[in-house]
């Protein structure tokens, strides 16, 4: 029977991988794909801790996290399409002027 910490380390590594991708990629859609990878890591972490505690709270939390992930994906992709129509490119650097 594997214990919670092994799953949590895997979740932490998935989160770190998603973070590295989010910071380094320039394609807007791939940046959001990396946030989805981060959410996978969080899912593993939540369910592992729920299993450790012995109740179903972790899994209920994870269900709501799925809802939030779906909502975030829909809105993020709508915004990406809007931004693509404005500038004709998916490059995040095209919006560099936001940095001031």
């Amino acid at each position: 029977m594997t214990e919670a910490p092994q799953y949590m380390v895997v979740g932490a590594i998935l989160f770190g991988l998603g973070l590295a991708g989010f910071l380094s990629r320039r394609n807007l859609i791939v940046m959001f794909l990396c946030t989805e990878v981060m959410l996978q890591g969080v899912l593993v972490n939540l369910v592992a801790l729920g299993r450790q505690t012995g109740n179903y709270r972790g899994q209920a939390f994870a269900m709501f996290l799925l809802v939030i992930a779906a909502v975030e994906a829909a809105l993020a992709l709508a915004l990406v399409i809007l931004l693509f129509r404005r500038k004709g490119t998916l490059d995040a650097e095209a919006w560099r002027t936001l940095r001031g």
Partner: protein
Amino acid sequence: MGLLAGYWLYGIIALGAAGLYLASPRGRERSAWAGGIVALAAVALLLVELARRFQPGGPINGYFYSLAAVAILAAGRVVTHPRPVYAALYLVVVVLAVAGLLLLLDAEFLAAALVIIYAGAILVTYVVVIMLAQQPGAPQYDWQAREPAAAVTGSFVLTAAIAGAISNRTWSSPAAVRSLTDSNTLAVGNELLSTYAVALELAGVLLLVAITGAILIALKRPGSEASSASASREDRR
């Protein structure tokens, strides 16, 4: 060996970070093979370290180690692949591997929901949007990462801190689950509809607001849309 035993995990995560940096898209002609091999070695060492630290002499669960390896390597490929469609497909692999890990944790309903909702709806949406919003050829922003060294270093520090905090404490054995005779779907459904009923209703409202918002955001307005589209076409010429 006794003095360094606590630091193996950090070294392995550092090796994985080096593999991730080598595999990052840093130019049109660079391939990710060198980084891939380093990352593979890092994942193998990670699994050995996890087995050594958390299950000394106990039963080895082959399913966990293979699923974890697939999830981590596919997530590494999502993050480093220069073509967005392949990144989305590797994310499907990650979702399936995570669903397998959830099955190992006795979360059957969540595993099925993950495959149906995530791999079946959200990632299909991503692939369709990638199809709709792409530029011909290989644009530079796909094969050139932005400051990969800084990104990999920052994420290495965070991951090492979290993994260190997880492993540097004594973990008790998992508590017995409340009712092992109920099916998991029944138990999770019970929990959602009794303890979290208000949150469930709010989640429904949130989904409705998101659907409306997404449609409104991406709606093409006849007047302003034509002028901005022609303006962007003139800029590109």
